């Protein structure tokens, strides 16, 4: 990853010079298409945030515009707008640029050319990791300590008429590059009631995200798609606008709003990419009602296929392939909807097993998992994560849920998962991760510091026997509270990943991603 950064700086400078030259040349042309090119260039050259002019339907691939680091799906999906007309007029410029970039790249490393991209469709789904993009763009949400980035974000939000949520409290220095918000200061404080800029369903969703009422990767994606359905229902195409372009632009401020309420998850990012692709694929001669119906059906089928049926398939896979056998003692961590589903299904199929639920503060999600399992009749044990090495000798398998699977095989999940995987490895207990393929993300991360989420630090404050020791934590200058949400588990600790495509090792994630891209 450090290699990538070096590349970035030098490439950046070179491309910046070229850009200036190009600008002088193109000023005379006054072509709208050329302007689009310019603006396309900018995201390529700057390590700046993914904020792009929302109104310009940016033509897709500058090959470097395809980010491998795109947790914010907005830039990538902007690129997915079909660019039939502009492409033809910009073919020349593109070829020029491409030739230049290839020369540079060839001089730097022996990388494969981007020739494949020319033939590619209007779908720049992140390429598999062997096709390295020229410039790695850092998303803004991990550059909070960079004032320029913050300024750009503030400008972008202002343009979209969305209030900026301010950070709260002292941030531990290792994580000062991440946002930290307080639940007591919701974004709705700065919005008007009734909300006019943002659709009420989205405001409700944002509130539910920030209060934690909708939590969990699957739940958040389903709720997001549900809200999008309402938005699409209430949408009417304005005069002289095309649904395929206007609706995508309408969704952008909503996505920024949701991002401000709570950083988007990888599954949500993929869902948004899918929706934007479907919207922009609507032919221009399609009538509004038909188009809306088609979109609503697409959303339904996406949820059905990727979440519901995938869950069913994974459960079937796990049960039939004897991953849950009689006499098993299964350890689960926190509350993963998929793992709970698998266990309940296995119990229905009369497998005899018992479950150990491991929980951790401050979320204490394990209690909810415990409730659901016990309600079904499964016999459970409940421990806190500090007792994991005490309980592991009893355990025969560990089932973990995932928030996302990264392109290098790392598993991103609730904080504490990597601990459990580590201890399980030390005890030689097999660790199985259950994850639907729509959570596969083309990001690459090897540690939990670079990109994470900081939750409200006040959650760590607890009152026991009438005293609240941490109440005045802000007044202590040498005290910082850290409430991490995610961590990454290396593939060495994971023995198997169960997906609806089958049981694969952790390192096969990039293969799956590539297969998915080729399919679509």
């Amino acid at each position: 990853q450090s290699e990538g950064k070096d590349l970035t700086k030098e490439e950046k400078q070179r491309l910046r010079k070229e850009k200036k030259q190009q600008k002088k040349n193109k000023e005379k042309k006054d072509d709208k298409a050329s302007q689009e090119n310019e603006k396309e260039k900018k995201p390529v050259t700057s390590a700046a945030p993914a904020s792009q002019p929302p109104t310009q339907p940016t033509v897709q691939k500058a090959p470097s515009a395809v980010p491998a680091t795109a947790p914010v799906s907005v830039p990538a999906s902007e690129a997915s707008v079909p660019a039939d007309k502009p492409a033809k007029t910009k073919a020349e410029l593109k070829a020029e640029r491409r030739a230049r970039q290839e020369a540079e790249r060839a001089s730097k490393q022996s990388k494969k050319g981007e020739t494949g991209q020319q033939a590619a469709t209007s779908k720049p789904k992140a390429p598999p990791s062997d096709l390295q993009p020229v410039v790695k763009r850092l998303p803004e949400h991990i550059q909070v300590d960079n004032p320029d980035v913050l300024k750009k974000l503030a400008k972008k939000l202002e343009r979209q008429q969305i209030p900026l949520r301010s950070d709260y409290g002292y941030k531990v220095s290792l994580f000062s590059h991440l946002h930290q918000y307080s639940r007591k200061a919701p974004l709705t404080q700065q919005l008007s009631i009734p909300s006019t800029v943002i659709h009420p369903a989205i405001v409700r969703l944002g509130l539910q995200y920030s209060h934690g009422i909708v939590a969990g990767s699957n739940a958040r994606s389903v709720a997001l798609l549900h809200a999008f359905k309402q938005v699409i229902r209430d949408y009417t195409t304005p005069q002289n606008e095309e649904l395929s372009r206007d609706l995508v632009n309408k969704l952008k401020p909503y996505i920024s709003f949701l991002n401000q309420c709570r950083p988007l998850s990888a599954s949500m990012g993929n869902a948004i990419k899918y929706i934007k692709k479907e919207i922009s694929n609507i032919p221009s001669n399609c009538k509004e009602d038909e188009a809306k119906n088609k979109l609503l059906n697409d959303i339904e089928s996406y949820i059905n296929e990727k979440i519901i049926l995938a869950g069913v398939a994974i459960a079937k896979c796990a049960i039939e392939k004897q991953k849950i056998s009689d006499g098993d003692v299964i350890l689960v961590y926190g509350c993963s909807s998929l793992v709970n589903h698998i266990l309940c299904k296995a119990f229905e199929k009369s497998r005899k097993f018992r479950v150990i639920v491991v929980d951790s503060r401050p979320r204490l999600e394990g209690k909810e998992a415990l409730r659901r399992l016990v309600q079904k009749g499964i016999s459970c044990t409940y421990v806190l994560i500090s007792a994991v090495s005490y309980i592991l000798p009893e355990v025969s398998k560990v089932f973990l849920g995932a928030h996302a699977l990264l392109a290098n095989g790392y598993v991103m999940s609730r904080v504490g998962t990597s601990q459990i995987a580590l201890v399980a490895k030390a005890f030689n207990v097999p660790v199985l991760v259950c994850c639907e393929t729509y959570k596969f993300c083309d990001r690459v991360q090897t540690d939990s510091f670079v990109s994470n989420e900081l939750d409200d630090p006040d959650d760590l404050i607890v009152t026991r026997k009438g005293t609240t020791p941490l109440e005045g934590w802000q007044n202590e200058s040498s005290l910082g509270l850290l409430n991490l949400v995610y961590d990454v588990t290396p593939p060495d600790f994971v023995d198997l990943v169960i997906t609806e495509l089958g049981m694969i090792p952790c390192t096969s994630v990039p293969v799956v991603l590539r297969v998915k891209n080729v399919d679509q």
Partner: protein
Amino acid sequence: MELQAVLMAVGGGSRMTDLTYNTPKAMLPVGNKPLMWYPLNLLEKVGFEEVIVITTKEVQKAMSTDLKIKDVKMKLDVVSIQEDGDMGTADALRHIQPKIKTDILVLSCDLITDVALHEVVDLFRAHNATMAMLMSKAHEFTETVPGQKGKKKTAEQRDFVGVDQSGKRLLFMANEADLEDGLSIRKSIMRKHPRMLIKTGLVDAHLYCLKKAVVDFLTENKSISSIRGELVPYLVRKQFSKTVNSQKLKDDTDDQTQEKNDGPANHELLISSRDEPLLQLAQERSCWNDHRGDMSEAYHGGKLRCYVHIMDQGLCCRVNTLAAYIEVNRLAPKLFEEPSVHPSADISERCQMGSDSIIGAVCHIADKTSIKRSTIGNNTTVKEKVKVTNSIIMHGVTIEEGCNIQGSVICSNAVIGRGADLKYCLVGNGQHIEPEAERTNEIIVGTDQLMEI
């Protein structure tokens, strides 16, 4: 559109008839602004663009001439109803049902508050609640009220409000008047919420966020006529009624009769949105629960939920008694950063004016007067050597020389004769106090007003 605002400005003032004899309650001056301006200002500040105002023809006429109300930038859709008709607040809602297209925020015209409205509305949004309301801790009124003989502790009917541990979910609401044999709480509530806090010292601000389904429900059930008195307790009770929660409606043989009565009502209240299965799926997959310790899912599977936001700081006052009126005149001006002296007032040099006094427009304040902690309305004339302390003087009043007015309320168009000495009095509309009069703790109203009872 997300919310429609409805302002109820019909009649009222039954507990302060002396003040409202000539002026409808909605137009009573508080800090020289009409009472209904305050809720309108609250709505405007928060971002509403339209308000439906339900009021009488009298108030409508007064509104059209009032400058402050004309200042309001929102579009006011005034619906007037008959004053003498026995229309309760719920009846009024039923009357405007055709105008209601979405969820509503109902306010009373006598509410003066600086609450952050998003607190109430967020509860309504986040939990997909059927009703969200605002309450506030009651504060003792410190000012002496004219006409009160001694420390009369009015045994006001107390409200018993039961909330859950988080203090947000409303579990129980009843007024002392309705509880004859004592407070009884259903077992179903205790089973679901074993810890309940019952509060009595709360003031209901009469600010409610209601789902559109509730308004439709009101059109079906014509028996409910008051929001606060009947609708709210009904909704709170309905949260825990068996028919709402149980999935197997047909098997509940005991509740057959209850079902028949509540059946149609339930269908109205629980109009499920489209994509309900998606919402269900999201809730199922979410690892959140609003309570811990028992085996039920979030919200105990209940679809009907009522929430309350209890303010403990800040101003929240309902002006429905004389004491409240006096208190609010003291506090309300502090909410706004406005100059205490209206620019058009003509105040002479040698007038001693305290900083917490307010002088209205086109006033004439002569020399050697002393005005402390008082509110003086528009078009008032105060002659020389007058001492006004702790009082409320409404519009168009004339106070002759040498008067001493303390802790009193002088209504519009009254004339206080020379050298009068009034302590803790209430002078009604258009009354004339004879010169050299000495009145203490009296309510001075016209004889025709006395007959009003």
